């Protein structure tokens, strides 16, 4: 029903180019999350799809139909904004009804739809209230209800949870996942928060400086990143990256490291003697900051995440990483995979032994 296709999309604001030659397909019924640091173009892209900040070049298809020049209200989409953007002068019911009225839905039908949607988001008893009599979470529900009632082909959401407190955010997050399961429509969700992206998405679209770095499921994007940017953006703390003597880069995730007191306790391709600089006990896990033995004080430090809380500050221990947990990147910071580029991969493994 709601497949979104962007072809060769470009967007400029005056002299600044934000998006250039961007191609993207979001499959029907998918929960797609656009994630990236602020200013990476993710909101711009969402606004292009919505039509409220139309592209300067390229084509946009929704459900196989070109909508590049169609007005926002005629694209069969609904959007939930960061600041809710509900109409403060209208009641909750008025807010939900406004779009229906504009689409000339008959009154009886409107009443039925409003009752239905208000029930499903738990706003039934608030229908007569004005927005300023509602809490932040309730306003968010009004914004959701207003979007849902139109039964759109595509839901667009621009950081809808960022104004809620942490507890409510987690609750709304799972409600949104449920909502997506129930509605089975395409969701495009923008966030800067990688945890939110990982927990909600079917597909993560990671952007940087207007370019899509990788589009993949959360598992793939975590386990098999395309480049250093992706590897470091997803996961907390980010992947440790260091330059090797051949100019390529080596990476390993903090949570894949095994710390041992003795050198030969475990089998590992990558072994380093390190000194623990700080230790953060987080309950279920412990975070260590370590420095390689023999390096100067100002040298890079690396993070290690361990489920066991065995070591203390200033201890000297062994850092072990197995080969399957090592990632190699070329001089252009792009990933070297064993399957695609066995030669370079082998060279990197060889180089590792000399490190």
């Amino acid at each position, binding site marked *: 029903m709601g497949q979104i296709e962007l072809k060769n999309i470009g967007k400029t604001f005056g002299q600044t180019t934000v998006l250039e030659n961007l191609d993207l397909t979001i499959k029907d019924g998918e929960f797609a999350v656009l994630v990236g640091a602020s200013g990476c173009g993710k909101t711009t892209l969402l606004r292009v799809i*919505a*039509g*409220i900040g139309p592209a300067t070049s390229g084509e946009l298809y929704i459900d196989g139909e070109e909508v590049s020049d169609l*007005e*926002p*209200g*005629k694209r069969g*989409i*609904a*959007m939930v*904004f*960061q*600041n809710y*953007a*509900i*109409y*403060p*002068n209208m009641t909750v019911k008025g807010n939900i009804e*406004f*779009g229906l009225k*504009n*689409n000339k839905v008959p009154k009886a039908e409107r009443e039925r739809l409003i009752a239905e949607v208000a029930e499903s988001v738990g706003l039934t008893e608030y229908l007569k209230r004005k*927005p*300023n009599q509602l809490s932040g979470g309730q306003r968010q529900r009004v914004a959701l209800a*207003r979007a849902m009632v*139109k039964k759109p082909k595509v839901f667009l959401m621009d950081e809808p949870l960022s104004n809620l407190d942490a507890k409510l955010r987690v609750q709304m997050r799972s409600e949104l996942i449920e909502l997506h399961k129930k509605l089975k429509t395409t969701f495009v969700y923008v966030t800067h928060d990688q945890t939110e992206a990982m927990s909600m998405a079917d597909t993560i679209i990671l952007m940087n400086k207007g370019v899509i770095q990788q589009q993949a499921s959360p598992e793939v994007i975590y386990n098999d990143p395309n480049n250093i940017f992706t590897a470091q953006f997803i996961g907390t703390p980010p992947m440790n990256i260091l330059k090797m003597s051949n100019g390529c880069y080596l990476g390993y995730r903090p949570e894949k490291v095994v710390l041992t007191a003795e050198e030969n306790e475990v089998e590992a391709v990558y072994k380093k003697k390190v000194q623990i600089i700080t230790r953060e006990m987080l309950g279920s896990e412990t975070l260590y900051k370590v420095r390689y033995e023999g390096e100067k004080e100002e040298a890079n430090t690396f993070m290690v995440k361990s489920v066991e809380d065995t070591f203390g500050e200033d201890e000297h221990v062994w850092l072990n990483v197995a080969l399957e947990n090592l990632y190699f990147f070329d001089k252009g910071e792009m990933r070297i995979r064993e399957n695609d580029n066995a030669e370079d991969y082998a060279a990197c493994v060889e180089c590792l032994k000399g490190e």
Partner: protein
Amino acid sequence: MLGLTKKQRRNIKRTSLNILEWIFKLAVCVMFLFPFYWMVITSFKPYLETLQFPPTLWPETFTLSGYFTVFEELEVLRYIKNTLIVTGSVIVLQFLVNIPAAYAFAKWEYKGKGMMWAIVLATFMIPGQLTFMTIYYMFADWGILNSLLPQILPTIASAFSIFMLRQNFKQISDEVVEAARLDNASEWKILWRVMVPMAKSTVITTVLFSFIGHWNAYFWPLVMTRNEELKPITLAIDRLKSLEQGMNYTDIMAGNVILVLPVVILFLLASKKIIQAMAYRGMK
């Protein structure tokens, strides 16, 4: 002050400050209200009593002769009709012109917007005394000097109203407008159903200012009207000065009471909205 605790001393200080504050407020009120009071009582005094020295603070004999002169001899209702037609038309037309203009300046992007805004601001600063000659000749060319139009047309686009409304519209988040566009609302509908209700206080204030401005207009109708039939109430009241020999304060003040009464009533009704408009910050 000896023997008092710190708290007691602080209380005394606070009370005396409060009393001072009230005296000051009262003084300001008297300064503003006394002329009105003087106008009203003078309008009820017989002619000779208005000249009496020392003046009386309350009429010794009440008379309605001033009001009789204004209504019967001056036929003030005729002029009030002119003023009402002019003021009413201006307000309606301003409503239709200034609100959409302010919306376009606040929320649309188009070529030449900065230039146009500069022109609006420029008209804000150019006094009518500079342009009345050319406008008068223009209207003479058009042959409309024998109608009320010269009093209506030049003020339809009001820089002040556009400025005030634009500032208010700008405070309304773009997202609300975008949400309405996504709700398939036309720009016209967004303006009247979303923007104007949110800017209600400012709309009322600009209408009120416009009403006061046109109700009290003196200079513009003075130069634009030659025909007695077309004159507004302000010019009629002015004529009281020369209606009889000398200044008949009873008649003049009765005329003034009639002139300011509608404005005062309107202001009292809308003062809350005016304060809101000036202090509007929007809902977060």
